[in-house]
Every structure is written in C-alpha cells, then in structure tokens.
C-alpha cells in the first residue's frame, strides 16, 4: 500500500521540460557503437578487473568531435550527462561532474536511467537505505539517516516488507560474481545520488512544477476548444504592435542596463545565497532596511517605475516630497494602487475616502489634475469600480515622473542616501565554511509574520501622518483641526508591491485606454506648453507663494468679522486661484462642475465644522446641514472642514445660500 508522497517526487509525469532526457539517451546509445563510439578500458581493482570504464577526457573529446563544439561546451554537455545520471563517476561519486583528465566513468544501466514514465518511489529508496544499513552496520551518512528516520515514520505500515525485501535483495545480489556485484552496487549508489541528492547540492532533476495535464495527449475537440481558440486569436489581434527594431532595441537597452545587477550574470555582493547558503544579501536588501546598498540605489536611477516599486526607494522619494510639500501626489498614487488591488467590498468606501481627501475642491490634500481628467474621474466615481481612478492616477504618475523624479535625483535627500549607501565586501568561503552554511540553512520568516509586520508598519505610518503636509491650495492655518484624511491607506506595501511590476501604468486598464485617448492628447499639449515656457517648477512655486499670501489675506479679513464664511472660502477655493496662477499645467476645475451639488447650493462647496472626528458627519442629514451652516455663520469661527461628496445630496432643499 503506497501513500503517494509527492514531496520529493522526481518522477517525470508530464514533464516535457525534460526533453533533454530523450536526447541524452540517443547520444548515449551512439556512444556505444563499437566503431564510432567511445573506447573503453578495463578498470583495475585490487581483486578484480572491471571492463567498460571510460575516462573523462575521452568523453569530452568524443562529444567535441561528434557535435563539432569546443572543449568548454563539450565539458558542460558531459557534466550534464553525468548530472542527469546517464554516466557516473567511479571516483568521487558524489560530485556529478566531468573532469577533463583520466578520471574514470562508466555508463549507467538502462534500468537506472532517469526517464519520463517511472516515478522514483520512496519505497525503493527505503529499501536501498535498509540495505545500506545492513552493509554499513548502522553507520549511515547524516542526510541518509534523516531520510531513514522519516521514511520509517511515514512508511511504518510496510516497514516489515521493506526490511524483508532489503534482506532478500542483499542476498540476491550476493549470488552474482564479484565484479558484477561491485558494478551493480556502484550503479545503484549512483542512481540514488542523482535522485536523492545530499544537501547543499544543486540537482539537475529539479524541473519546477508538475503540469497537471499531459501536453502530449490529444485534446478532445469540443465547442469549448474552438471557443478558446477564438478568444485567443481575438486577443492577439487586439494587442498593440511595435516594430521589431524598436522592441529589440528596448531589449538590448534593458540587458545592457541590468547586466551588472543580475546576480547570476555578474557578481552578487556579498555572495549569492543560492550558491553559498549565506543570506546576507537578502538581509541587506530587505524592503524596509535603513541603509540600502549601492546597487539598489543605482537601480532607482534607471526609471521611475523602478524607484516606486522598491519599498525603500519609495520611502526615500516620499521623504523628498515631504520636504517639497508635494507629498499628496505620491499619497494619491498609493491610494489608487490600494483601491486597484484591494478587496472588492471596500472599493466604494475607499473611492469616497480618496475623493474627499484628494479630489474634491478644498480637499485637505488636493492634487492637481487637469479639468478633463477630473471631470471624467468624478463622473466615474458615481459608480466606483477598481479602475475608476486610473486616468487620474496615470496623470499624477506622469507628473511625478516628469517633474519630481528629476528633482529628486538632484536633491540633497537622494545625494545623502547615495553617500550613505553601503557596498558590502565579497565573501570568500572556504570548503568547510560552505558545508557549514549548508547545514545551517533555515526557512525564512513565515508569510503570516511578514504580513503582521507590514500591518504594524502601516499602522505606524498612519499614526505619523504629518498634518502640516497640506496642499498649498488649502488653508494652511495650523490651529485648525484639519481632517487630513488618508489615515488608513498610507503605504500599500503588501499586495501592490508584489503585483506592481506587472501592472505599471504602462499596462493600462481597459477603461483608461478608452479615457486616455482624450486626456493623453490634452496632457501632451499641456506638457508641451509647460516645457516650452521654460521652468514650470519655479512658476508653480511662485503660484504657491502667491496663493499662500492670498490665503493669509482672506483670513485676516475673516477675523475682522467682515465677511461671511461663504465668501471667504469662495475666495480660497481653487477656482479663484486659477486666475492668479501662471503655470499652464495647473488648470482650473471648471466652475460648471457637472457633479456639483444641486444648483441651489452655490457658492461654498463645503462647510466648516468644529473638531468633528472624521468618521462621523460624512453623510449629514439635510436639516442638520442647514443648522450647522447657520451655527457656523453665527459663530464666525472656523473648525474642522468636512467634505460632502457631491453625489450624496440627491434632493433639493431650502437653505442658506
């Protein structure tokens, strides 16, 4: 009775990835030809002589001659044959390589060849270990002992059979003549070195995941089969195309850029964990490490996407933006990522939150997007879905990329990071140390713990939101208990960072493809103008300064008690600012907002409340609104602002204007 243990199943069901096996077999059979094959020599042992031993250099020479390749490649090919188990070394049997000297090898018998159909059974391995136990009188190697104990536990029900069979096989092998017995034992041992490799080795039988379906079997022709073909061809037609010169050029550029950063193509400092079993490299490159490595920082300069996708890079960028007082862009972008990749149930809630925090007029962290995009976005927000904020997000992404990214790279923040970045020395491990390392291998932190850590990080970040980081277009008065919003989604590190690379703005959602057709052209004219006019950054700053002074002026007016809240805030609204702003990039939200509240409510788009926690008062009842409006007006004071989503108020009402 076999419990099929698929843990270490090197069986080759449905593994066309191992097409090398059939080819290797052909080559091996060619080597047997008495005329054109390999010349063998007898192996002289103390008590006997065993024929058919071949030397490493002969193998390499034969391969080089047969396939017309150079020695180095023939050597790799030969090593592959050894690693797969078709040829085994007679000396140093645990190292599955071809040595280009007179070291001896022998061909493996076809019974022990690795092939497609026969899985390598744990039962056979257990019998082999029991036999070794008998021969070595209990002194097994460490990994063999571990396997033995494990199998004894899991195969306890058939252990009697295993021991019996081991004894019988031991006796049966004794019936053979001595040279053949040696050969058989060598063959069996080589077989298990290939299929149950000792720890710290790289095995050639690692083929990745098993395929569930046999790709060589015939597929039943059903209507579904044809439907899948149709969908596939339709999608192929819809795919955008690019000239091969362009795409190849991009590939070449990518390879040239990333060549030095690839841990397998070039050095990996301090050492490649997969080779030396030392995890310093991973520790130094953790997502939230204090001091990044030089290579990592260099990667941030390759592209904006690279910077954003690296958590540490994003943190650095966030710090820079904080100093520039334009952190809302990144916050908005992250909020959009969180919306895109988050749970479906929370989409509506998150969308509203984002609107109130970033998009509404007078929002605490208002972002600057052009009118058309804003119009489209707000319209879409009536029925929010995952990709509703795509156009806005793309716009902000391009804004950051073209504007802030460049400045970031010249900024003192970045220069400081570059200076502090470390460049670890290369490890030089001796043989014994490498063995020790392989024994000390431990699994990494469980994903559950990692997720907990990320959540703690997020909570910490939320608690540290700097409320002075307001958009320059909203009131900067510090004593206002401003609802700076966005407490829950500061860093979408968990899911978005994993999937970000696959879903950069370069792969737009279907909706943004449709929307982009208009906004892209707009943006292009925008940016074109912007760049044409020289230094947009300076002008934006000028605009900001102007707005700040204007705000101060308005407040002074208010405090004198001379104006109603309505007019004061009307003057503060971005609508008025547009007149003062000289940057062509900052386009006003047109006063004819289609998503505005019912026409009766003109003038101030929002109301002022005092110290109301953000959770309440989101959807006020009509009558309360009016009461509060009048209350505020009578008080003449100011307090926490509250944004009402324009689509919330559905009914017309009477109230103060």
């Amino acid at each position, binding site marked *: 009775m076999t419990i099929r243990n698929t843990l270490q199943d090197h069986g080759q069901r449905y593994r066309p990835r191992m097409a090398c096996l059939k080819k290797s077999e052909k080559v091996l059979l060619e080597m047997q030809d008495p005329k054109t094959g390999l010349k063998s020599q007898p192996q002289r042992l103390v008590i006997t002589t065993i024929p058919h031993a071949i030397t490493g250099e002969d193998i390499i020479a034969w391969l080089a001659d047969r396939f017309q390749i150079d020695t180095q490649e023939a050597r790799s090919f030969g090593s592959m044959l050894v690693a797969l188990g078709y040829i085994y070394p007679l000396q140093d049997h645990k190292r599955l390589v071809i040595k280009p000297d007179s070291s001896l090898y022998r061909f493996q018998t*076809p019974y022990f060849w690795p092939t497609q159909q026969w899985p390598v*059974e744990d039962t056979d391995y257990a019998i082999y270990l029991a036999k070794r136990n008998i021969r070595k009188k209990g002194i097994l190697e460490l990994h063999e002992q571990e396997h033995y104990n494990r199998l004894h536990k899991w195969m306890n029900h058939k252990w009697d059979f295993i021991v019996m069979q081991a004894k019988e096989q031991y006796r049966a092998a004794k019936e053979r003549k001595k040279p053949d017995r040696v*050969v058989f034992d060598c063959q069996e041992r080589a077989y298990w070195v290939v299929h149950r490799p000792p720890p710290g080795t790289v095995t050639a039988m690692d083929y990745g995941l098993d395929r569930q379906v046999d790709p060589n079997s015939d597929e039943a022709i059903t209507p579904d089969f044809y439907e899948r073909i149709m969908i596939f061809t339709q999608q192929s037609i819809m795919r955008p195309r690019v000239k091969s010169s362009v795409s190849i050029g991009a590939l070449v550029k990518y390879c040239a850029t990333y060549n030095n950063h690839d841990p397998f193509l070039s050095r990996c400092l301090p050492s490649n964990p997969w080779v030396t079993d030392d995890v310093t490299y991973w520790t130094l490159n953790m997502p939230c490490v204090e001091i990044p490595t030089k290579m990592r920082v260099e990667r941030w300069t390759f592209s904006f996407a690279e910077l954003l996708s690296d958590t540490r890079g994003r943190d650095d960028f966030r710090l820079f933006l904080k100093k520039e007082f334009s952190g809302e862009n990144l916050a908005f972008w992250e909020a959009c990522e969180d919306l895109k990749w988050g749970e479906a149930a929370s989409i509506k809630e998150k969308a509203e939150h984002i609107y109130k925090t970033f998009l509404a007029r007078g929002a605490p962290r208002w972002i600057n997007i052009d009118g058309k995009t804003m119009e489209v976005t707000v319209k879409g927000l009536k029925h929010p879905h995952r990709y509703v904020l795509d156009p806005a997000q793309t716009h902000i992404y391009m804004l950051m990329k073209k504007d802030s990214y460049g400045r970031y790279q010249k900024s003192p923040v970045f220069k400081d990071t570059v200076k502090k970045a470390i460049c670890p020395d290369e490890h030089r491990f001796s043989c014994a140390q490498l063995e020790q390392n392989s024994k000390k291998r431990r699994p990494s932190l469980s994903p559950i713990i990692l997720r907990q850590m990320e959540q703690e990080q997020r909570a910490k970040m939320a608690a540290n939101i700097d409320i002075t980081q307001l958009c320059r277009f909203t009131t900067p008065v510090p004593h206002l208990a401003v609802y700076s919003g966005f407490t829950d989604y500061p860093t979408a590190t968990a899911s978005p960072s994993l999937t970000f690379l696959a879903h950069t703005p370069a792969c737009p959602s279907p909706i943004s493809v449709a929307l982009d057709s208009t906004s892209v052209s707009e943006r292009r004219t925008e940016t074109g103008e912007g760049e044409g006019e020289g230094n947009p950054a300076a002008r934006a700053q000028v605009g900001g300064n102007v707005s700040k002074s204007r705000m101060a002026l308005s407040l002074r007016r208010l405090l004198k008690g001379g104006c109603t809240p309505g007019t004061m805030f009307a003057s503060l609204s971005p609508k008025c600012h547009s007149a003062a702003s000289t940057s062509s990039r900052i386009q006003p939200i047109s006063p004819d907002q289609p998503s505005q509240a019912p026409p009766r409510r003109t003038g101030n788009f929002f109301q002022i409340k005092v110290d109301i926690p953000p959770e309440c008062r989101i959807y006020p009842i009509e009558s309360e609104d009016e009461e509060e409006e009048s209350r505020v007006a009578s008080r003449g004071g100011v307090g926490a602002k509250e944004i009402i989503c324009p689509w919330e108020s559905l009914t017309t009402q009477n109230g103060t204007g």
Partner: protein
Amino acid sequence: MTSRWRRSVDELALRGRQRGECERAQEALGRVTSCFQQLAASLGSSADGSFLRDEMDETRNLAQRICRGLSRRLLRLLSDCGPAPSGLEDRQVSERLWVLFLSALETFLSDLRKACDLIGRFPLRQRYDRRALVNTGCVDGVVAVAARVASVQAPWLTLEEEPTPDLTNHITELEAMLSEMQLRVPVAFWSVEATQPAGVEACGGLEGLEGLQEVEDSLEELMEGEIVSRRPACCCLSCVG
C-alpha cells in the same frame, strides 16, 4: 456443545496454518522479486541476452503463481474472519500480511513495467541490435541468480502449473488483482505497525553471512576509490564561475 467448541478450535488451528502458509509464501515472493530485480537491472546492458530474458520469464511465471495463490488465500482469510474469541489479534496478523503482500505486489508491478519498457526499447531480435546495448561493465550471465530462483519453494507451487503469460498481459492481470483486492476487503493499512524498531537490520547478522563481512568491507573500499575533497558536492550546471 463440545463439538462446537472443538470446531472453533479446529477453525483456529486451520487459520493459523493458513497464516503460516501465507507467511512462507510472502518470503518466497520476496526472494523471487528481488531476483527479478537483479535480472531486470541487466536489461539493455552488455549482459543482456536471450538467456537473461528466458530466465526473466521463468521468474515472472513463478512470481505469478505465488501471487495468485497468495491473493486467493489472503482474500479467504480476511473475508471470513468469523466471531472468534481471539479474533482481534488474528485479524491484526492477517491485516499485516495483507499490507505486506500488497506492497510487494506494487513493487513487483513497477519492476515489471520497467522491464516491459526496456524490452521494448532493446528488442534484440536481430544480431545488430546488440550494438545498441550499453556497456555497463556487467558481463556475467545471471546463472546463480537464476539458480536461486529455482530453489524457491512455496506451498502450492507444485499443484498449479500454468504457461507463462505475456509480459503486458501479466501486468494487466496483476493490476486487476491489485484493484480487486483493494475493493473486496477494506483494510485500514495505516493501522498496521512494524514489528521491529528502526535500524534492527543493521545489528542482527544475516544468517550464514557473517564470514563475508571482511569481503564486504573491501568491496566498499573498492567502490569508494579516491575521494577528492574540494567544493562540497555540487554539479557544475548552475555554478557561477
């Protein structure tokens, strides 16, 4: 009254005898299958030949006869386990035999499948087919192994004489036997425990082989050869230079 008691005693004795028979047959089966493995290991190699294949057929035949008898008797043992007083222990012993037999059957089946495939790959019908055989270093015929097979005795072997089935038919028949047995009798195989602790085979000397230990050691040394200690075992496929 006493006659009923006597009958139950007789039944117990009978069942005990049957179990003993099955145990001996199991040992015989183990012997035959391990010899079969030795023969199959030479398939496709320089030691392959018509003699080898004939011997394999003989071995198969013997194994088949043992299997048939054993499966029949085990089925009988486990199906009609009546309300006997000491039924539980007997049942456990019978179940153990059952599990051992099925494990042996599975191992033998996998060997048969491999052999079938190898024979298909190295047909040896013509003389020039011998050129394709792999030079593995084995030259001996497996005469002694065959002799060992011939020496196997099982209780009912003399009774049933049938011609050797074709290899593929043999496999099909065994597969059918396996599935039939598993369907007919529900045995919880995980409840069967090993009778000996781990590692006991290493301590006990195998009967009649104590004198050969020195030879074993020298063989082991022969196999070791020289051990070059450089980087720990790794195949050079994915090393970065």
